[in-house]
Protein backbone atom coordinates (compact mmCIF):
# COMPACT_ATOMS: atom_id res chain seq x y z
CA UNK A 1 0.00 0.00 0.00
CA UNK A 2 1.19 3.48 -0.77
CA UNK A 3 2.09 6.09 1.77
CA UNK A 4 0.20 9.35 1.81
CA UNK A 5 1.62 12.34 0.06
CA UNK A 6 -0.27 14.62 2.41
CA UNK A 7 1.80 15.38 5.49
CA UNK A 8 -1.08 15.51 7.93
CA UNK A 9 -2.94 12.45 9.04
CA UNK A 10 -6.33 13.63 7.96
CA UNK A 11 -8.50 10.61 8.42
CA UNK A 12 -10.14 10.46 5.03
CA UNK A 13 -6.88 11.07 3.29
CA UNK A 14 -5.14 8.39 5.26
CA UNK A 15 -7.86 5.93 4.43
CA UNK A 16 -7.79 6.76 0.79
CA UNK A 17 -4.25 7.08 -0.32
CA UNK A 18 -3.02 4.04 -2.03
CA UNK A 19 -5.47 1.70 -0.43
CA UNK A 20 -7.87 0.44 -2.98
CA UNK A 21 -6.34 2.65 -5.65
CA UNK A 22 -3.28 0.48 -5.92
CA UNK A 23 -4.75 -3.01 -6.10
CA UNK A 24 -3.01 -6.04 -4.74
CA UNK A 25 -2.47 -8.78 -7.23
CA UNK A 26 -3.65 -12.35 -6.70
CA UNK A 27 -3.56 -15.36 -8.97
CA UNK A 28 -2.18 -18.79 -8.22
CA UNK A 29 -1.57 -22.03 -10.12
CA UNK A 30 -1.98 -24.08 -6.92
CA UNK A 31 -5.72 -24.19 -7.62
CA UNK A 32 -5.02 -25.42 -11.12
CA UNK A 33 -2.80 -28.18 -9.78
CA UNK A 34 -5.52 -29.19 -7.32
CA UNK A 35 -8.33 -29.37 -9.87
CA UNK A 36 -6.25 -30.35 -12.91
CA UNK A 37 -8.15 -27.62 -14.68
CA UNK A 38 -6.49 -24.91 -16.77
CA UNK A 39 -6.54 -21.29 -15.60
CA UNK A 40 -9.20 -20.59 -18.24
CA UNK A 41 -11.66 -22.77 -16.38
CA UNK A 42 -11.99 -20.37 -13.46
CA UNK A 43 -10.57 -17.11 -14.82
CA UNK A 44 -11.55 -14.81 -17.64
CA UNK A 45 -8.46 -14.02 -19.66
CA UNK A 46 -6.71 -17.15 -18.40
CA UNK A 47 -5.33 -15.25 -15.41
CA UNK A 48 -6.68 -14.31 -12.00
CA UNK A 49 -8.44 -12.80 -10.31
CA UNK A 50 -11.44 -12.29 -12.65
CA UNK A 51 -13.73 -15.28 -12.06
CA UNK A 52 -15.95 -17.26 -14.39
CA UNK A 53 -19.03 -19.04 -13.09
CA UNK A 54 -16.90 -22.10 -12.47
CA UNK A 55 -14.43 -19.97 -10.51
CA UNK A 56 -17.17 -18.42 -8.40
CA UNK A 57 -18.47 -21.84 -7.45
CA UNK A 58 -14.97 -23.09 -6.63
CA UNK A 59 -14.43 -20.08 -4.38
CA UNK A 60 -17.80 -20.38 -2.67
CA UNK A 61 -17.17 -24.07 -2.04
CA UNK A 62 -14.12 -23.06 -0.07
CA UNK A 63 -11.41 -23.91 -2.62
CA UNK A 64 -11.99 -27.59 -1.81
CA UNK A 65 -12.90 -29.28 -5.10
CA UNK A 66 -10.08 -31.45 -6.29
CA UNK A 67 -9.20 -34.04 -8.89
CA UNK A 68 -8.74 -37.52 -7.44
CA UNK A 69 -6.80 -37.54 -4.21
CA UNK A 70 -5.53 -34.03 -4.87
CA UNK A 71 -2.00 -32.80 -5.26
CA UNK A 72 0.93 -33.32 -2.95
CA UNK A 73 0.99 -30.99 0.03
CA UNK A 74 3.73 -28.87 -1.44
CA UNK A 75 1.75 -28.31 -4.63
CA UNK A 76 -0.67 -26.19 -2.61
CA UNK A 77 2.03 -23.54 -2.42
CA UNK A 78 2.38 -20.96 -5.13
CA UNK A 79 4.43 -17.89 -5.79
CA UNK A 80 3.81 -14.67 -7.59
CA UNK A 81 5.96 -11.76 -8.70
CA UNK A 82 4.75 -8.45 -10.06
CA UNK A 83 7.26 -6.09 -11.64
CA UNK A 84 6.54 -2.79 -13.34
CA UNK A 85 7.58 0.47 -14.90
CA UNK A 86 5.70 3.66 -14.02
CA UNK A 87 5.82 6.93 -15.91
CA UNK A 88 3.73 9.94 -14.93
CA UNK A 89 3.25 12.91 -17.23
CA UNK A 90 5.19 15.06 -14.80
CA UNK A 91 7.52 13.81 -12.11
CA UNK A 92 7.06 14.47 -8.42
CA UNK A 93 10.38 15.84 -7.20
CA UNK A 94 8.66 17.60 -4.27
CA UNK A 95 7.10 14.41 -2.97
CA UNK A 96 8.69 11.20 -4.18
CA UNK A 97 6.26 8.30 -4.38
CA UNK A 98 8.27 6.22 -1.93
CA UNK A 99 11.49 6.36 0.02
CA UNK A 100 13.11 3.99 -2.46
CA UNK A 101 11.97 5.51 -5.75
CA UNK A 102 12.88 8.40 -7.98
CA UNK A 103 10.67 11.30 -8.90
CA UNK A 104 9.52 9.62 -12.12
CA UNK A 105 10.15 6.73 -14.53
CA UNK A 106 10.46 4.08 -11.85
CA UNK A 107 11.11 0.42 -12.35
CA UNK A 108 9.83 -1.52 -9.37
CA UNK A 109 9.35 -4.95 -7.97
CA UNK A 110 5.83 -4.17 -6.80
CA UNK A 111 5.40 -7.33 -4.83
CA UNK A 112 6.47 -10.91 -4.43
CA UNK A 113 4.06 -13.26 -2.71
CA UNK A 114 3.92 -16.75 -1.31
CA UNK A 115 0.52 -18.44 -1.22
CA UNK A 116 -1.15 -21.43 0.30
CA UNK A 117 -4.16 -22.20 -1.83
CA UNK A 118 -6.65 -25.02 -1.76
CA UNK A 119 -8.24 -27.78 0.21
CA UNK A 120 -7.19 -28.46 3.80
CA UNK A 121 -9.85 -31.03 4.65
CA UNK A 122 -13.17 -32.22 3.20
CA UNK A 123 -15.05 -28.93 3.35
CA UNK A 124 -12.29 -26.65 4.55
CA UNK A 125 -9.98 -24.70 2.30
CA UNK A 126 -7.88 -21.60 2.33
CA UNK A 127 -6.32 -18.83 0.33
CA UNK A 128 -3.47 -17.32 2.34
CA UNK A 129 -0.99 -14.80 1.00
CA UNK A 130 2.25 -13.50 2.47
CA UNK A 131 3.77 -10.60 0.58
CA UNK A 132 7.03 -8.76 0.29
CA UNK A 133 5.98 -5.24 -0.59
CA UNK A 134 8.70 -4.06 -2.93
CA UNK A 135 7.59 -0.44 -2.75
CA UNK A 136 7.70 -0.02 1.00
CA UNK A 137 10.17 -2.85 1.60
CA UNK A 138 8.25 -4.83 4.15
CA UNK A 139 7.14 -8.43 4.47
CA UNK A 140 3.62 -8.84 5.76
CA UNK A 141 0.56 -11.01 6.05
CA UNK A 142 -1.57 -10.15 3.05
CA UNK A 143 -4.90 -11.74 2.14
CA UNK A 144 -6.30 -14.43 4.39
CA UNK A 145 -9.49 -16.29 3.49
CA UNK A 146 -10.12 -19.58 5.28
CA UNK A 147 -13.44 -21.22 4.55
CA UNK A 148 -15.82 -23.94 5.57
CA UNK A 149 -18.48 -24.55 2.94
CA UNK A 150 -21.08 -27.13 1.93
CA UNK A 151 -23.44 -27.50 -0.97
CA UNK A 152 -26.78 -29.03 -0.11
CA UNK A 153 -30.48 -28.86 -0.71
CA UNK A 154 -32.32 -26.51 1.63
CA UNK A 155 -36.07 -26.85 1.33
CA UNK A 156 -35.54 -28.36 -2.10
CA UNK A 157 -33.29 -25.54 -3.29
CA UNK A 158 -29.67 -26.12 -4.26
CA UNK A 159 -27.72 -23.99 -1.81
CA UNK A 160 -24.09 -23.29 -0.99
CA UNK A 161 -23.57 -22.33 2.65
CA UNK A 162 -20.25 -21.18 4.00
CA UNK A 163 -18.25 -19.32 6.58
CA UNK A 164 -15.15 -17.32 5.75
CA UNK A 165 -12.56 -16.18 8.27
CA UNK A 166 -10.78 -13.32 6.54
CA UNK A 167 -9.03 -10.01 7.00
CA UNK A 168 -10.78 -7.65 4.61
CA UNK A 169 -14.50 -6.88 4.32
CA UNK A 170 -15.57 -7.85 0.83
CA UNK A 171 -12.73 -10.24 0.09
CA UNK A 172 -15.12 -13.19 0.30
CA UNK A 173 -17.32 -11.73 -2.43
CA UNK A 174 -17.49 -13.76 -5.68
CA UNK A 175 -18.05 -10.81 -8.03
CA UNK A 176 -15.79 -8.03 -9.31
CA UNK A 177 -17.65 -4.93 -8.33
CA UNK A 178 -16.67 -4.41 -4.68
CA UNK A 179 -13.31 -2.74 -4.08
CA UNK A 180 -11.58 -5.87 -2.78
CA UNK A 181 -11.77 -7.58 -6.17
CA UNK A 182 -12.65 -4.70 -8.45
CA UNK A 183 -10.88 -3.35 -11.49
CA UNK A 184 -8.21 -2.36 -12.11
CA UNK A 185 -6.76 -5.62 -10.83
CA UNK A 186 -3.33 -4.05 -10.69
CA UNK A 187 -2.31 -0.42 -10.62
CA UNK A 188 0.86 1.53 -10.01
CA UNK A 189 1.84 2.04 -6.41
CA UNK A 190 4.23 4.76 -7.52
CA UNK A 191 1.76 7.16 -9.11
CA UNK A 192 -0.04 9.95 -7.24
CA UNK A 193 -3.25 8.77 -5.64
CA UNK A 194 -6.36 10.85 -4.96
CA UNK A 195 -6.66 12.42 -1.54
CA UNK A 196 -9.75 10.52 -0.42
CA UNK A 197 -11.54 7.24 -0.77
CA UNK A 198 -14.23 5.40 1.14
CA UNK A 199 -13.14 3.17 4.01
CA UNK A 200 -14.61 0.13 2.25
CA UNK A 201 -12.20 0.88 -0.56
CA UNK A 202 -9.37 -0.92 1.23
CA UNK A 203 -9.27 1.17 4.39
CA UNK A 204 -9.46 -1.86 6.65
CA UNK A 205 -7.72 -4.36 4.36
CA UNK A 206 -5.32 -6.52 6.30
CA UNK A 207 -5.70 -4.51 9.50
CA UNK A 208 -8.72 -6.42 10.77
CA UNK A 209 -9.81 -9.96 11.47
CA UNK A 210 -13.31 -11.23 11.19
CA UNK A 211 -15.73 -13.70 9.75
CA UNK A 212 -18.61 -13.66 7.38
CA UNK A 213 -21.35 -16.17 6.70
CA UNK A 214 -22.59 -16.49 3.17
CA UNK A 215 -25.11 -18.37 1.07
CA UNK A 216 -25.83 -18.77 -2.60
CA UNK A 217 -29.40 -19.91 -2.93
CA UNK A 218 -30.71 -21.58 -6.03
CA UNK A 219 -28.02 -19.98 -8.16
CA UNK A 220 -30.07 -16.78 -8.01
CA UNK A 221 -29.33 -15.06 -4.71
CA UNK A 222 -26.03 -14.43 -2.99
CA UNK A 223 -26.00 -13.01 0.52
CA UNK A 224 -23.21 -12.40 3.00
CA UNK A 225 -22.94 -10.83 6.44
CA UNK A 226 -19.75 -10.32 8.41
CA UNK A 227 -18.24 -8.73 11.48
CA UNK A 228 -14.69 -7.44 11.92
CA UNK A 229 -12.43 -6.10 14.63
CA UNK A 230 -8.96 -4.58 14.63
CA UNK A 231 -5.86 -6.65 15.09
CA UNK A 232 -4.05 -5.82 18.29
CA UNK A 233 -0.98 -3.67 17.82
CA UNK A 234 1.26 -6.60 18.79
CA UNK A 235 -0.31 -8.92 16.24
CA UNK A 236 -0.12 -6.21 13.59
CA UNK A 237 3.54 -5.68 14.40
CA UNK A 238 4.42 -9.37 14.16
CA UNK A 239 2.37 -9.70 10.99
CA UNK A 240 4.40 -7.00 9.30
CA UNK A 241 1.42 -4.64 9.34
CA UNK A 242 1.19 -1.07 10.56
CA UNK A 243 0.94 -1.22 14.36
CA UNK A 244 -0.04 2.45 14.43
CA UNK A 245 -3.06 2.03 12.16
CA UNK A 246 -6.22 3.48 13.62
CA UNK A 247 -8.19 0.92 15.63
CA UNK A 248 -11.87 0.16 15.29
CA UNK A 249 -13.78 1.59 18.25
CA UNK A 250 -16.17 -1.35 18.06
CA UNK A 251 -16.65 -4.21 15.62
CA UNK A 252 -17.43 -3.20 12.05
CA UNK A 253 -20.33 -4.86 10.27
CA UNK A 254 -20.54 -5.66 6.58
CA UNK A 255 -23.28 -7.14 4.43
CA UNK A 256 -24.04 -7.62 0.79
CA UNK A 257 -26.90 -9.07 -1.23
CA UNK A 258 -26.90 -9.84 -4.94
CA UNK A 259 -29.44 -11.20 -7.38
CA UNK A 260 -27.94 -13.06 -10.27
CA UNK A 261 -28.94 -14.94 -13.37
CA UNK A 262 -26.07 -17.21 -14.24
CA UNK A 263 -25.26 -19.99 -16.63
CA UNK A 264 -21.91 -21.38 -17.58
CA UNK A 265 -21.79 -18.81 -20.36
CA UNK A 266 -23.15 -15.61 -18.95
CA UNK A 267 -23.84 -13.71 -15.79
CA UNK A 268 -26.13 -10.83 -14.93
CA UNK A 269 -25.89 -9.52 -11.40
CA UNK A 270 -27.29 -6.58 -9.46
CA UNK A 271 -26.56 -6.06 -5.82
CA UNK A 272 -26.28 -3.82 -2.81
CA UNK A 273 -23.80 -3.66 0.04
CA UNK A 274 -23.01 -1.73 3.21
CA UNK A 275 -20.42 -1.43 5.94
CA UNK A 276 -20.61 0.36 9.25
CA UNK A 277 -17.33 1.15 11.00
CA UNK A 278 -16.03 3.49 13.69
CA UNK A 279 -12.35 4.36 13.93
CA UNK A 280 -10.95 5.58 17.21
CA UNK A 281 -9.03 8.85 17.00
CA UNK A 282 -6.57 8.96 19.89
CA UNK A 283 -7.76 11.39 22.53
CA UNK A 284 -10.71 12.73 20.61
CA UNK A 285 -13.42 10.15 20.12
CA UNK A 286 -14.31 7.98 17.17
CA UNK A 287 -15.10 8.74 13.54
CA UNK A 288 -18.08 6.83 12.17
CA UNK A 289 -18.36 5.70 8.58
CA UNK A 290 -21.45 4.32 6.92
CA UNK A 291 -20.60 2.97 3.47
CA UNK A 292 -23.35 1.73 1.22
CA UNK A 293 -23.80 1.26 -2.45
CA UNK A 294 -25.07 -0.66 -5.42
CA UNK A 295 -23.32 -2.70 -8.06
CA UNK A 296 -24.02 -4.53 -11.29
CA UNK A 297 -22.11 -7.01 -13.47
CA UNK A 298 -22.42 -8.83 -16.71
CA UNK A 299 -20.23 -11.49 -18.24
CA UNK A 300 -20.72 -12.98 -21.66
CA UNK A 301 -18.39 -15.91 -22.17
CA UNK A 302 -20.02 -17.58 -25.18
CA UNK A 303 -17.75 -20.22 -26.61
CA UNK A 304 -14.74 -18.54 -24.97
CA UNK A 305 -13.43 -17.09 -28.23
CA UNK A 306 -14.97 -13.65 -27.69
CA UNK A 307 -15.66 -12.68 -24.10
CA UNK A 308 -17.20 -9.47 -22.81
CA UNK A 309 -17.50 -8.28 -19.24
CA UNK A 310 -18.82 -5.15 -17.58
CA UNK A 311 -18.73 -4.06 -13.96
CA UNK A 312 -20.16 -1.01 -12.26
CA UNK A 313 -20.19 0.24 -8.69
CA UNK A 314 -21.61 3.25 -6.92
CA UNK A 315 -20.42 3.66 -3.36
CA UNK A 316 -21.51 6.39 -0.96
CA UNK A 317 -19.94 7.11 2.41
CA UNK A 318 -21.45 9.19 5.20
CA UNK A 319 -18.77 10.31 7.65
CA UNK A 320 -19.43 11.55 11.16
CA UNK A 321 -16.01 12.78 12.18
CA UNK A 322 -16.42 13.04 15.95
CA UNK A 323 -12.74 12.40 16.59
CA UNK A 324 -11.23 14.24 13.66
CA UNK A 325 -13.52 17.26 14.04
CA UNK A 326 -13.10 17.26 17.81
CA UNK A 327 -9.34 17.30 17.34
CA UNK A 328 -9.55 20.25 14.99
CA UNK A 329 -8.53 18.22 11.95
CA UNK A 330 -11.65 18.72 9.87
CA UNK A 331 -13.83 21.73 9.20
CA UNK A 332 -17.05 19.73 9.28
CA UNK A 333 -18.46 17.24 11.72
CA UNK A 334 -20.18 15.47 8.85
CA UNK A 335 -18.68 14.88 5.42
CA UNK A 336 -19.52 12.53 2.63
CA UNK A 337 -17.90 10.84 -0.34
CA UNK A 338 -19.35 9.20 -3.43
CA UNK A 339 -17.44 6.96 -5.79
CA UNK A 340 -18.57 5.80 -9.18
CA UNK A 341 -16.62 3.32 -11.26
CA UNK A 342 -17.40 1.40 -14.42
CA UNK A 343 -15.33 -0.89 -16.62
CA UNK A 344 -15.85 -2.81 -19.84
CA UNK A 345 -13.51 -5.53 -21.10
CA UNK A 346 -13.15 -7.68 -24.16
CA UNK A 347 -10.99 -10.80 -24.43
CA UNK A 348 -10.10 -12.65 -27.60
CA UNK A 349 -9.21 -16.32 -27.32
CA UNK A 350 -8.49 -15.84 -23.61
CA UNK A 351 -5.19 -14.29 -24.66
CA UNK A 352 -5.63 -10.68 -25.77
CA UNK A 353 -7.58 -8.32 -23.56
CA UNK A 354 -8.63 -4.70 -23.75
CA UNK A 355 -10.30 -2.81 -20.90
CA UNK A 356 -11.70 0.66 -20.64
CA UNK A 357 -13.07 2.33 -17.55
CA UNK A 358 -14.19 5.56 -15.96
CA UNK A 359 -14.02 6.67 -12.34
CA UNK A 360 -15.27 9.62 -10.39
CA UNK A 361 -15.05 10.60 -6.73
CA UNK A 362 -16.99 13.53 -5.32
CA UNK A 363 -17.37 14.71 -1.77
CA UNK A 364 -17.85 17.48 0.73
CA UNK A 365 -15.69 20.54 0.72
CA UNK A 366 -13.56 20.49 3.86
CA UNK A 367 -10.78 23.05 3.97
CA UNK A 368 -9.04 21.43 6.93
CA UNK A 369 -9.36 17.77 5.98
CA UNK A 370 -8.21 18.46 2.45
CA UNK A 371 -5.39 21.01 2.38
CA UNK A 372 -2.92 22.25 -0.16
CA UNK A 373 0.37 20.38 -0.34
CA UNK A 374 2.66 19.37 -3.19
CA UNK A 375 1.29 16.59 -5.44
CA UNK A 376 -1.14 15.03 -2.95
CA UNK A 377 -2.96 18.06 -1.60
CA UNK A 378 -6.07 19.98 -2.55
CA UNK A 379 -6.08 23.75 -2.74
CA UNK A 380 -9.84 23.66 -3.32
CA UNK A 381 -10.40 21.65 -0.15
CA UNK A 382 -12.30 19.03 -2.12
CA UNK A 383 -11.67 15.37 -2.89
CA UNK A 384 -13.27 15.47 -6.35
CA UNK A 385 -11.35 13.34 -8.82
CA UNK A 386 -12.32 11.88 -12.14
CA UNK A 387 -10.81 10.34 -15.22
CA UNK A 388 -10.57 7.21 -17.27
CA UNK A 389 -8.31 4.19 -17.65
CA UNK A 390 -7.45 1.88 -20.51
CA UNK A 391 -5.52 -1.35 -20.41
CA UNK A 392 -4.14 -3.84 -22.91
CA UNK A 393 -3.26 -7.33 -21.71
CA UNK A 394 -1.51 -10.33 -23.15
CA UNK A 395 -1.71 -13.73 -21.46
CA UNK A 396 0.25 -16.18 -23.61
CA UNK A 397 -0.22 -19.17 -21.29
CA UNK A 398 -2.90 -20.54 -18.98
CA UNK A 399 -4.82 -22.48 -21.62
CA UNK A 400 -5.32 -26.27 -21.51
CA UNK A 401 -2.40 -27.01 -23.81
CA UNK A 402 -0.19 -24.13 -22.75
CA UNK A 403 3.49 -24.32 -22.07
CA UNK A 404 4.16 -25.01 -18.37
CA UNK A 405 0.45 -25.47 -17.55
CA UNK A 406 -0.47 -25.85 -14.67
CA UNK A 407 2.86 -24.79 -13.26
CA UNK A 408 3.22 -21.21 -14.36
CA UNK A 409 1.37 -18.36 -15.99
CA UNK A 410 2.24 -14.89 -17.20
CA UNK A 411 0.35 -11.67 -17.83
CA UNK A 412 1.88 -8.65 -19.53
CA UNK A 413 -0.04 -5.40 -19.45
CA UNK A 414 0.03 -1.80 -20.50
CA UNK A 415 -2.25 0.48 -18.51
CA UNK A 416 -2.93 4.18 -18.94
CA UNK A 417 -4.78 6.27 -16.39
CA UNK A 418 -5.79 9.85 -17.22
CA UNK A 419 -7.24 12.45 -14.88
CA UNK A 420 -9.44 15.37 -15.92
CA UNK A 421 -9.83 16.43 -12.30
CA UNK A 422 -7.69 15.59 -9.30
CA UNK A 423 -8.34 16.54 -5.69
CA UNK A 424 -10.89 19.15 -6.58
CA UNK A 425 -9.52 20.86 -9.69
CA UNK A 426 -8.11 20.38 -13.16
CA UNK A 427 -5.48 23.12 -12.96
CA UNK A 428 -3.17 23.84 -10.04
CA UNK A 429 -5.13 21.43 -7.90
CA UNK A 430 -2.49 21.14 -5.17
CA UNK A 431 -1.76 24.86 -4.81
CA UNK A 432 1.77 24.31 -6.03
CA UNK A 433 1.12 24.55 -9.77
CA UNK A 434 0.40 20.89 -10.53
CA UNK A 435 -2.39 20.01 -12.94
CA UNK A 436 -4.57 16.91 -12.91
CA UNK A 437 -3.15 15.78 -16.24
CA UNK A 438 0.37 15.85 -14.76
CA UNK A 439 -0.69 12.70 -12.89
CA UNK A 440 -1.60 10.79 -16.05
CA UNK A 441 0.15 7.49 -15.62
CA UNK A 442 1.58 4.88 -17.93
CA UNK A 443 2.05 1.58 -16.15
CA UNK A 444 3.70 -1.43 -17.77
CA UNK A 445 3.64 -4.60 -15.78
CA UNK A 446 4.76 -8.20 -15.91
CA UNK A 447 2.88 -10.51 -13.60
CA UNK A 448 4.17 -14.05 -13.11
CA UNK A 449 2.46 -16.77 -11.10
CA UNK A 450 3.88 -20.22 -10.45
Amino acid sequence: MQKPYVPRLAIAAMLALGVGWSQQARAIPAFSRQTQEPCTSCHIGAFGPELTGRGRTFKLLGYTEQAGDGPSWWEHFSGMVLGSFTHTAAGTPQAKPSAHSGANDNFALDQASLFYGGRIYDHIGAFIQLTEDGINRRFHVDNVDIRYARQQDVLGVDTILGISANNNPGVADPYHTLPAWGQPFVASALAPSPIAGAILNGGLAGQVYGASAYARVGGMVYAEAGIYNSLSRDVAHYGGLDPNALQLANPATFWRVALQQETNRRLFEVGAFAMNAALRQPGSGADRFLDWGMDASFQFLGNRTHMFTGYGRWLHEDQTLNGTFGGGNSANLRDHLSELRGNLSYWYQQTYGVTGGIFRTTGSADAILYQASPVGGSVAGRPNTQGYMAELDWVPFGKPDSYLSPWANLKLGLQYTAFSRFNGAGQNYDGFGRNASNNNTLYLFAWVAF
Partner: protein
Amino acid sequence: MTLHRPLAAAAVLLALAAPAFAAGDAARGAESFKNDCAACHTVVQGGPNRVGPNLFGVLGAKAGEGRGGFHFSPAMARSGLTWDEATLIRYLQAPRRVVPGTTMSFQGVDDAAEAADIVAYLATMK
Protein backbone atom coordinates in the same frame (compact mmCIF):
# COMPACT_ATOMS: atom_id res chain seq x y z
CA MET B 1 -64.30 -29.18 -33.10
CA THR B 2 -62.86 -27.23 -35.97
CA LEU B 3 -61.22 -24.86 -33.55
CA HIS B 4 -59.30 -27.74 -32.03
CA ARG B 5 -57.93 -29.09 -35.30
CA PRO B 6 -55.04 -26.62 -35.60
CA LEU B 7 -54.08 -27.34 -31.99
CA ALA B 8 -54.17 -31.04 -32.62
CA ALA B 9 -52.08 -30.60 -35.73
CA ALA B 10 -49.56 -28.54 -33.79
CA ALA B 11 -49.43 -31.18 -31.09
CA VAL B 12 -48.76 -33.85 -33.69
CA LEU B 13 -46.01 -31.74 -35.22
CA LEU B 14 -44.45 -31.16 -31.80
CA ALA B 15 -44.64 -34.85 -31.01
CA LEU B 16 -42.95 -35.66 -34.28
CA ALA B 17 -40.30 -33.02 -33.67
CA ALA B 18 -39.57 -34.11 -30.12
CA PRO B 19 -37.59 -37.28 -30.88
CA ALA B 20 -35.36 -35.40 -33.35
CA PHE B 21 -34.86 -32.69 -30.75
CA ALA B 22 -33.96 -35.22 -28.07
CA ALA B 23 -31.56 -37.00 -30.40
CA GLY B 24 -29.36 -33.94 -30.38
CA ASP B 25 -26.57 -32.82 -32.63
CA ALA B 26 -23.22 -34.41 -31.82
CA ALA B 27 -21.22 -31.66 -33.50
CA ARG B 28 -22.92 -28.96 -31.47
CA GLY B 29 -22.58 -31.21 -28.46
CA ALA B 30 -18.84 -31.42 -28.92
CA GLU B 31 -18.64 -27.63 -28.80
CA SER B 32 -20.87 -27.49 -25.74
CA PHE B 33 -18.85 -30.19 -24.04
CA LYS B 34 -15.69 -28.21 -24.65
CA ASN B 35 -17.21 -25.10 -23.09
CA ASP B 36 -19.30 -26.57 -20.31
CA CYS B 37 -17.79 -29.90 -19.31
CA ALA B 38 -14.19 -30.31 -20.42
CA ALA B 39 -12.76 -28.34 -17.51
CA CYS B 40 -13.76 -31.15 -15.14
CA HIS B 41 -14.16 -34.19 -17.41
CA THR B 42 -12.04 -35.95 -19.98
CA VAL B 43 -13.88 -38.00 -22.56
CA VAL B 44 -11.25 -39.90 -24.52
CA GLN B 45 -10.59 -43.55 -23.82
CA GLY B 46 -8.11 -43.90 -21.00
CA GLY B 47 -8.30 -40.20 -20.15
CA PRO B 48 -7.64 -39.26 -16.52
CA ASN B 49 -10.26 -38.46 -13.94
CA ARG B 50 -10.24 -34.84 -12.88
CA VAL B 51 -12.66 -33.11 -10.51
CA GLY B 52 -15.20 -35.25 -12.37
CA PRO B 53 -14.77 -38.74 -13.81
CA ASN B 54 -13.67 -39.68 -17.31
CA LEU B 55 -16.81 -39.96 -19.42
CA PHE B 56 -15.70 -42.33 -22.17
CA GLY B 57 -18.49 -44.84 -22.68
CA VAL B 58 -20.72 -43.26 -20.06
CA LEU B 59 -23.92 -43.77 -22.05
CA GLY B 60 -25.55 -46.91 -20.72
CA ALA B 61 -23.22 -47.20 -17.73
CA LYS B 62 -24.33 -47.50 -14.13
CA ALA B 63 -24.07 -44.24 -12.18
CA GLY B 64 -21.47 -44.13 -9.44
CA GLU B 65 -19.53 -47.19 -10.53
CA GLY B 66 -16.21 -47.85 -12.20
CA ARG B 67 -14.59 -44.91 -13.93
CA GLY B 68 -11.08 -45.89 -12.96
CA GLY B 69 -11.60 -45.73 -9.23
CA PHE B 70 -13.12 -42.26 -9.22
CA HIS B 71 -14.29 -41.25 -5.74
CA PHE B 72 -18.03 -40.87 -6.25
CA SER B 73 -20.17 -39.17 -3.65
CA PRO B 74 -22.30 -41.52 -1.55
CA ALA B 75 -25.36 -39.93 -3.14
CA MET B 76 -24.20 -40.82 -6.63
CA ALA B 77 -23.06 -44.28 -5.62
CA ARG B 78 -26.46 -45.18 -4.22
CA SER B 79 -28.53 -43.36 -6.85
CA GLY B 80 -29.28 -46.58 -8.70
CA LEU B 81 -29.37 -44.67 -11.98
CA THR B 82 -28.31 -45.92 -15.34
CA TRP B 83 -27.08 -43.24 -17.70
CA ASP B 84 -29.51 -43.69 -20.54
CA GLU B 85 -30.21 -40.74 -22.83
CA ALA B 86 -33.25 -39.46 -21.00
CA THR B 87 -31.60 -39.64 -17.60
CA LEU B 88 -28.45 -37.92 -18.79
CA ILE B 89 -30.45 -35.14 -20.42
CA ARG B 90 -32.36 -34.56 -17.20
CA TYR B 91 -29.16 -34.71 -15.16
CA LEU B 92 -27.25 -32.26 -17.31
CA GLN B 93 -29.96 -29.66 -16.86
CA ALA B 94 -30.06 -29.87 -13.08
CA PRO B 95 -27.53 -32.31 -11.60
CA ARG B 96 -28.40 -31.68 -7.98
CA ARG B 97 -32.09 -32.05 -8.57
CA VAL B 98 -31.67 -35.47 -10.19
CA VAL B 99 -29.08 -36.68 -7.68
CA PRO B 100 -29.45 -34.65 -4.47
CA GLY B 101 -26.15 -34.68 -2.66
CA THR B 102 -23.93 -35.15 -5.68
CA THR B 103 -20.64 -33.30 -5.41
CA MET B 104 -20.95 -32.08 -8.99
CA SER B 105 -21.21 -28.35 -8.38
CA PHE B 106 -22.17 -27.50 -11.97
CA GLN B 107 -25.58 -25.84 -12.02
CA GLY B 108 -26.64 -27.25 -15.37
CA VAL B 109 -26.65 -26.41 -19.05
CA ASP B 110 -28.95 -23.81 -20.56
CA ASP B 111 -31.74 -26.04 -21.84
CA ALA B 112 -32.85 -29.53 -22.88
CA ALA B 113 -31.64 -29.01 -26.45
CA GLU B 114 -28.10 -28.34 -25.33
CA ALA B 115 -28.22 -31.29 -22.96
CA ALA B 116 -29.40 -33.48 -25.83
CA ASP B 117 -26.55 -32.24 -28.00
CA ILE B 118 -24.01 -33.13 -25.32
CA VAL B 119 -25.55 -36.57 -24.85
CA ALA B 120 -25.40 -37.09 -28.62
CA TYR B 121 -21.71 -36.25 -28.48
CA LEU B 122 -21.11 -38.55 -25.51
CA ALA B 123 -22.85 -41.33 -27.45
CA THR B 124 -20.07 -41.11 -30.02
CA MET B 125 -17.41 -41.62 -27.36
CA LYS B 126 -17.59 -45.34 -26.81
